[in-house]
């Protein structure tokens, strides 16, 4: 991807983001569920209700509210959360690293799984490893994503209770972090007790997120490798006397990566979206978990902030995927 095309992509993302802002803002105010109606106590008077509307700026027209929202947005202000009474930027800033860290570990697990299973299945094509991996992929795809979390909780938290099923780290472990990236920070600090605890807690939610991606990616990688194995350059490698393993790994695999990266990239957006339910199930204090609370409480500023953050994440992710795609496919670099 050239600098010019990157710039073009970035500029195109501006109207996309604005569209997200408008739709999100209007939809939230059109759908039923008034935050003030949820807040009023049994003895609240009409004056109490009006007063609360004024406090939260909901006494203005939707258009006026939107103008104030855009004005504040340009000043880096996403408003104050109605339910948490904290600055939305600060709240999202505290939770986003948690979700990013979880997504990162899930993606690492997914990539290791895809490459491992994909190469194994194509190496032993027609033999039991391929049958086993195909069956595994089919089974994983047949089970709804969120159910994996519940299944893992049952298996590893109750029946065979050796993995933690709640939270981000053991509550008895003391850690005074400078950032919210506990896993990376503890590793960099060499605090292996914290690292172990955070890693233990992240494995099951990350695996729940990674499994569907592994299933889809493995199938595609396998078929791409098998397709590549029929190409002339692979025949030439065979003639040269390369081992089967070397042919698969060094000749067919790099060429089979391009469609896999494309599909994996698309699936990654689903993975990020999947954090919402998985974080909820595992009590993981990320952005997704907070999103559900925000929706339940009709916390308009917080929902708007979270949706905007997810939109930015998706745009950035798509640009990164395109850049990776261009890196892997030299023809695209000259387009």
């Amino acid at each position, binding site marked *: 991807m050239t600098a010019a095309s990157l710039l073009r992509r970035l500029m195109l993302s501006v109207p996309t983001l604005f569209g997200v802002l408008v739709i999100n803002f209007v939809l939230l105010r059109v759908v039923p569920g008034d935050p003030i109606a949820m807040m009023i*106590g049994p003895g609240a008077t009409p004056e109490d209700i009006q007063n609360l509307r004024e406090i939260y700026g909901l006494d203005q027209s939707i258009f006026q509210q939107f103008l104030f929202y855009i004005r504040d947005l340009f000043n880096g202000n996403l408003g104050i959360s109605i339910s948490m009474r904290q600055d939305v930027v600060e709240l999202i800033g505290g939770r986003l690293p948690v979700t990013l860290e979880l997504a990162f570990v899930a993606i690492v697990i997914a990539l290791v799984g895809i490459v491992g299973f994909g190469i194994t299945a194509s190496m032993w094509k027609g033999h039991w490893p391929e049958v086993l991996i195909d069956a595994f992929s089919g089974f994983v795809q047949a089970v709804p994503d969120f159910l994996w979390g519940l299944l893992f909780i049952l298996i590893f938290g109750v029946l065979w209770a*050796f993995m933690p099923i709640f939270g981000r780290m053991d*509550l008895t472990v003391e850690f005074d972090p400078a950032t919210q990236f506990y896993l990376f920070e503890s590793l960099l600090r060499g605090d292996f007790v914290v690292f172990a605890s955070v890693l233990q807690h992240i494995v099951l939610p990350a695996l729940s997120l990674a499994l569907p991606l592994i299933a889809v990616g493995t199938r595609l990688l396998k078929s791409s490798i098998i397709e590549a194995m029929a190409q002339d350059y692979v025949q030439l490698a065979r003639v040269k006397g390369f081992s089967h393993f070397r042919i698969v790994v060094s000749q067919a695999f790099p060429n089979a990566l391009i469609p896999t990266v494309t599909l994996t990239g698309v699936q990654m957006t689903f993975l990020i979206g999947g954090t919402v339910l998985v974080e909820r199930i595992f009590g993981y204090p990320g952005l997704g978990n907070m999103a559900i609370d925000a929706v339940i409480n009709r916390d308009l500023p917080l929902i708007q902030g979270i949706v905007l953050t997810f939109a930015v994440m998706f745009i950035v992710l798509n640009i990164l995927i395109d850049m990776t795609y261009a890196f892997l496919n030299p023809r695209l670099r000259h387009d």
Partner: protein
Amino acid sequence: MRINSIKRLKKCLVAAVAVTAVSLSAAGVVMAGGKDSLTIAYHVGVPAWDPTTGLSSVNPQLQSIYKSVFDQYIDQNPDLSFKPGLLTDWGWNDDRTKVHMTVRSGAKWQDGEPITAQDVVWNLNRASDPASGNPVAGFIWASVGDFEINGNEITGTVKSYTADYFKWMAFLTGYLIPPHYYEKVGKEGFEKKPMGSGPYMVDKFERGSYVRLKANPYYWGGKPAIENVVFKFVTNPASRIAEIESGSSDLTLNIPFEEYDRLKDKSGLVGVTTPVSDIAMIFFNDVEPFLDANVRKAAVHAVNRKALVDRLLKGYGVPLHTLEAPEYAAYDPSIKVAYDPELAKSLLAESGFSPSNPVELTIQTTRGYLPKDYEIIQAIVGMWRKVGIEAKIDVYEVAKHYELRAQDTLAPAAFYNWGNSVGDPQDSTGHAMFGPSPHSVWDTDDLDGMIGPLWGELDENKRIAGWKKVSRHIADNAYVLPLYQQVQPVIHRSGLSFTPYVSNFILPHTMGW
């Protein structure tokens, strides 16, 4: 060169796998249950710490955590009766134009500073200030003002008489926060490091995950028996069940009754069910077809409450005939509305309806918000169908219910759960049925005419008798369909002494190992 790179990569991979494997095996799952600690898998998280303002302050489910950290002016016993909190004495003068309160001597905030009468007045004035964001500032807290202090004694002038003013001191938003600390750290600082005078201090709070509490050495009620308490915010019921089954938590609540029955029989676990101050009910709206008294009465007589409780809730519920639970001040056990489908049929026949020519209406309900809410409504719709009422179920979110109710645009029938942990009739029948209230659905002059004078009734006996008459009038005219009192299932580890509260509080300072 390339071979060296591959070798280095291999070494790195092996090292990474080794670190991961060692890390995973090194850390074990920490089990709950030490003598000085208690872990509770709680069903909601704390969004905000100020217990007197904002959305969280009127969320009944958060009160257990607030009560662990903050004191209320007046406290409650497990049976809803009242007892001294930070106030040791309170009351009205004879003509109810003045109030008096006595602040507990020797009580301290969690930083060791003494709690003074000035602190109490600061809190009362703040609660009544509309700018503070207290959701009931006007109706409750502004009803008394012009406070005067004399040592530990406070007197105030009644601006508009509210009979349950003191009961609200044990209810939603009736908490005290330390003025000196709040003014020093501000609103945002308080949210980050809250402080009160309750039995526990906030030791560590991870938003959306847990709060760790430490016993307050300055607590006027004595240091709690359990030193460390963790409320884990486990919002998913399946995860709460896993928490207690795996031994990661010592106590959990709000789980499906089927799971409760299974868990209570497991070795090492104890189950406790308590009827709590939450009432499942169906609001009737004063729109067609419920303007026809025969239709309303038929809709009430056709419902078999006992069958609903026995079959759908596995017996975990108390059938009710009014909006007053047995523990409430104005409960009248003599008010009964018979289950009589034949009577229902004849009433409908008087209005020209029958099972073959049913009256049609819409009933709104949540699905999954309350135990078996949708199933209960399905069953009621089935009971109604047999007598000649054809109801269409409209499922909505609870947020929509609040909005529609505030606008008085609910469907003719709407399922809801009404909580009232102080048991005063004003806070159940009153606000639910009095037309001008933003929470009422049925608005007719006959009922408003009966309820109106009760708000200002000074004689407590007359007031309670008046509310009983209102309940009877409502039952006779079928203005609402009360269903049952909810039951709270709690599972805890054996060895833990747990005190159930009708108010649905889970209070660690009342527990011990």
